[in-house]
């Protein structure tokens, strides 16, 4: 069945009344005489007056300009990669410091403290020592401890030392 017959049959099914009407285009399509002869030249003149856009041949841009051209696929992939790296950086698990300390033996810890005791903040060390239930648990040698206390006492001003003694 031809395409035309298909269309006529469809119209007949939809509207038998309308399918009986003679199909003819109104004369509205007829333009003024010689209209089509002049039109190409007229439009070409318009295009020549707009030189920026008057080229059907796309200008070839230098290769380096193509680097700045938007590349939807590349941009999408780069954005995803950036989001992934940023997410990994922000959400990565914190270094497992407690686990590292747990892996050290008590002797290693006390040895480290004894070796670098001069570098510790004295106030922090005092607080830590006081808070410890048994300072001897650190196995610090008595001489080192004595030396340490002497340093602390010498570093204190008279008023603080007096206040300490009164509290004791």
């Amino acid at each position, binding site marked *: 069945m031809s*395409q*035309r017959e*298909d*269309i006529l049959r469809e*119209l007949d099914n*939809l*509207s038998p*009344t*309308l399918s*009986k*009407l*003679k*199909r*003819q*285009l*109104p*004369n*509205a*399509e007829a*333009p*003024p005489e010689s*209209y*089509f002869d002049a*039109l*190409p030249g*007229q*439009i*070409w003149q*318009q*295009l020549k007056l707009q030189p920026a*856009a*008057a*080229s*059907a*041949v*796309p200008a070839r841009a230098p290769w380096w300009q193509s680097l700045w051209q938007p590349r939807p696929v590349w941009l999408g992939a780069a954005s995803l990669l950036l989001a992934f790296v940023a997410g990994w950086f922000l959400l990565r698990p914190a270094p497992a410091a407690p686990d590292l300390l747990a892996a050290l033996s008590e002797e290693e810890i006390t040895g480290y403290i004894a070796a670098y005791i001069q570098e510790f903040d004295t106030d922090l060390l005092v607080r830590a020592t006081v808070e410890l239930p048994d300072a001897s648990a650190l196995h610090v040698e008595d001489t080192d401890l004595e030396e340490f206390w002497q340093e602390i006492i010498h570093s204190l001003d008279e008023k603080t030392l007096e206040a300490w003694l009164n509290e004791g």
Partner: protein
Amino acid sequence: MAPVQQSKTDIADEYILQLLQDARSVEQGFRLLMGKYQQPLYAVIRRIVHQHEDADDVLQNCFINVFRNIHQFGGKSKLYTWLYRIAVNEAITFLNQQKRHATHSLEAGEGLALSQLPAGDSPDAQALQAHLQQAISQLPEKQRIVFEMRYFDEMPYEKIEAILHTSVGALKASYHHAVKKIEAYFKTNEISIL
């Protein structure tokens, strides 16, 4: 022996496109393109916008846009389908602008329907055609375009789909609604076709 004159409509699209790709032959390509397609595109546009002056403006814009964007024609569809789509889009854009400026009235369409009828038919036949044009002019814009493409141009739905970028199902619905509305117009006005 005199050379055989080749008709403008016989010139292959591929040849025209080839000419348009080269700056040295672009004008020749453009003139051939216009020679081949200006009349069918004018008919399409004229049927949508009605008045010759409007159709002239739209057709000029259409060919300017075609020329500027011809390098984007990828050959996925036929050149005529691509041109037809641009022409229809330009005409619809024009109508929408007219509506915004409130200068395009229904009366203009009605006037055209009643005055520009095929000559040579009997008064009854002319009256029927006038009523048909009147009924068509009262359809919503999209339905009107689909109806005219199917009824007058006898286009298959697949081709209309390629031009209007509307699914075949939606086109069938538009066409069916349009036919029913035209039929209802004839019944309401007690117009007998027999």
